[in-house]
């Protein structure tokens, strides 16, 4: 960046951004396809919700269910706020690709507006109008509820719903703007919108349950997660938005042959022998995965802490633990699980691979987060079991030494590496752009994951499964004196 551009005063940049936002909002307010739905959702919908609330009151009062009615009011408040913001999704999906279709994008790209100003301008313009409509709708609903039932939410709850509404809008809009900047037609953008709508439908269902159960303290966690998601989406947008991409793509077509060829190139590293593959593909992919390992390790530590906390909270009665015949149970389970047989080794190995594949699928659709949660579970179970055994009088160290360490010394690092690779795939779009397209970035991360899985994790898991089948039972029996 040149000195001249760096020297641009913030006031000047803000005025350019304001000019863009003003134009976009003016355009929206002159489009009847935006204004009419917005007016309906702002003026008519809250009144409809007031009638719905009144109907609920009348119904539940017949059975003395006032509590139910009070749980419904905040839920309807959230819905009244959410619906107008959904219009923002439509506006945002059209933001870049619509201009491209109407040929008005290129003159805009030719102006001195920076990529950040363009992206933020489009996001702000898509958020402000729907949020104003949401605020009006919420006000209308609250006024109606006050007159109908004399109900007004506690200020904390009102604050929660306002924050949630803003976070929903920012999340959806920033994701939609990213989609709009990456597609070549409004039709394609609308089709891809399901990647925003479906997760938000699930999120809304979860939030609705929380509202119905009046778990308002827990709602803060959801609010925190949605705000985090909004920040992540904005970061993805700022990182990946390049005006270059908007005009470069003229043909919108999934070229599986090119995708396959690029993936194969990344996966093999153009190596011809397994040894060369380890040198040219596995080594570099593993090194690229290393920076994610501290995050995965932190997640495992959290998993262990949660296990300890749960063991304390839901402790088995000590007497019950002491009266059980663990030796018999241990021997039975060894027999049932096929220990000391190749079948047992295969069963443990395939179970671990299944867990990694499930973690991968969930990680891909949740920025890596759910993948880590899946891999944290066994760690939580180990710490839960360790604390529980300690409560029964068995030394925690002896338990770990006998039941976990013999195979865990290989399996836990394998899971750690696998978690890091999954986290990288989930977060690949957050990486600093390096001239590659989003598809290439994703395919490269996917190839790295598969390289690490096949080249590092699976061999380690195989060794761990052998140790778990043949060594761990002996070690466990040894340390416990059986």
């Amino acid at each position: 960046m040149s000195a001249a551009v760096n020297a641009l005063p913030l006031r000047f940049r803000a005025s350019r951004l304001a000019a863009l936002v003003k134009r976009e909002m003016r355009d929206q307010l002159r489009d009847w396809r935006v204004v009419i739905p917005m007016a309906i959702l702002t003026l008519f919908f809250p009144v409809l919700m007031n009638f719905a609330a009144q109907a609920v009151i009348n119904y539940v009062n017949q059975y003395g269910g006032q509590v139910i009615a009070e749980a419904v009011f905040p839920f309807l408040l959230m819905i009244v706020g959410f619906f107008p913001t959904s219009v923002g999704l439509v506006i945002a999906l059209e933001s870049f690709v619509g201009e491209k279709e109407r040929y008005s994008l290129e003159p805009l790209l030719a102006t001195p507006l920076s990529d950040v100003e363009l992206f933020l301008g489009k996001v702000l313009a898509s958020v402000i109008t729907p949020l104003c409509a949401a605020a009006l709708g919420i006000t209308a609903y609250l006024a109606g509820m006050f007159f109908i039932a004399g109900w007004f939410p506690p200020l904390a709850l009102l604050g929660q719903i306002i924050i949630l509404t803003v976070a929903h809008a920012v999340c959806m809009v920033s994701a939609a703007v990213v989609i709009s900047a990456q597609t070549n037609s409004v039709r394609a953008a609308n089709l891809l919108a399901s990647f925003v709508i479906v997760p938000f439908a699930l999120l809304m269902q979860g939030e609705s349950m929380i509202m119905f159960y009046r778990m308002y303290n827990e709602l803060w966690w959801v609010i925190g997660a949605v705000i985090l998601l909004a920040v992540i989406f904005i970061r993805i947008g700022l990182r990946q938005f390049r005006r270059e991409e908007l005009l470069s793509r003229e043909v919108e077509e999934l070229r599986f042959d090119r995708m396959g060829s690029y993936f194969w190139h990344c996966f093999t590293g153009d190596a011809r022998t397994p040894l060369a593959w380890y040198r040219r593909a596995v080594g570099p992919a593993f090194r690229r995965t290393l920076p994610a390992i501290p995050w995965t390790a932190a997640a495992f530590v959290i998993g262990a802490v949660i296990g300890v906390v749960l063991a304390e909270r839901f402790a088995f009665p000590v007497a019950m633990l002491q009266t059980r015949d663990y030796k018999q149970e241990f021997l039975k389970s060894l027999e049932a699980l096929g220990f000391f047989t190749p079948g047992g080794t295969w069963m443990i190995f395939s179970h671990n691979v299944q867990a990694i594949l499930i973690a991968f699928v969930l990680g891909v659709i949740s920025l890596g987060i759910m993948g880590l949660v899946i891999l944290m579970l066994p760690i939580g179970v180990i710490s839960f079991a360790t604390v529980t055994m300690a409560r029964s009088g068995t030394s925690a160290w002896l338990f770990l030494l006998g039941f976990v360490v013999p195979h865990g010394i290989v399996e836990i690092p394998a899971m750690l590496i696998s978690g890091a690779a999954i986290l990288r795939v989930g977060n690949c779009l957050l990486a600093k752009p390096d001239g590659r397209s989003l598809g290439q970035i994703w395919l490269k991360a996917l190839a790295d994951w598969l390289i690490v899985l096949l080249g590092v994790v699976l061999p380690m898991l195989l060794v761990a499964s052998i140790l778990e089948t043949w060594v761990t039972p002996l070690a466990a029996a040894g340390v416990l004196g059986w």
Partner: protein
Amino acid sequence: MIEANGLTKHYERVTAVDGLSLRVGRGEILALLGPNGAGKTTTTRMLAGILRPNAGGARVAGFDVLTETENVRAAVGVLTEQHGLYSRMRCGEYLDFFGALYGLPPAERRDRARNLMRDLRLEVDSDAWLAEFSKGMRQRLALVRALMHSPKVLLLDEPTSALDPESARVVRDLLRSMRAAGCTILVCTHNLSEAEELADRIAIIRRGRLIAEGTAAELRMRMLGPAVFELRLAEDSEALASVLDGLAEGIGRTPASIRYRAADPLSANPEIVRRVMERGGKVVELREVTPSLESVYLQAVAEEGAPAPSREGI
């Protein structure tokens, strides 16, 4: 003011611009010609700081298109092939918006818009809706937009394609006055007569590569060889027989006229006329047949191995 060196742009497996180098000086108009898909639009997009070259580079208005793109965009006025106006805006709002993006104060935005609209004879109210503009009005408004910030460099894609002859003349006059004021102008066009009339130099590209560059006269000489002359007599005559021997190459003959290519017309033409008159021929006219730029263009863009274009148009 525009210096491109080895400018290259790939779209996946297609090379749109391949090592293009060109230079346009201050106060100069360069016409960029080439068939559809030759890479003209991609070239202007790279010079405008909209697309990033894969290789090579360029300096526009003193700024590097790779590292100083915002400065490049601030210094360049771009007229895109598709005007893409915002149909739900009024004329005044539209120009005010773009003026604001270029950092012009409100009063200056109004003055610039009014003056440019007057210069381009765009006689509409600033409250007029853009959706109601004709194609020619849209083109002129797009040009006003490109000129709002008094750019040092203009990149114009087909600036007169939608205009009637009178409006096109107005636009050409404006471009000439801007050239006189020191503005550097690159015009992409398929209108060859306009290119010849307007441009100081012409560059022809094909498949992203520069294949010919120079003034119209230089290109004619380079592409079509020495000048062609036509000598006409008052009536059919045998006086034309063998009259070119040792002086020029004949390329066509009728009983009353002859066409020939002369490498050295200053010495050949008087001698040819003398020979004809000696043989009793009555010379009515001797004129240079200027080959059209279209012939030059077709010759330049003809694929290697393909037959050369007919000289019928000469």
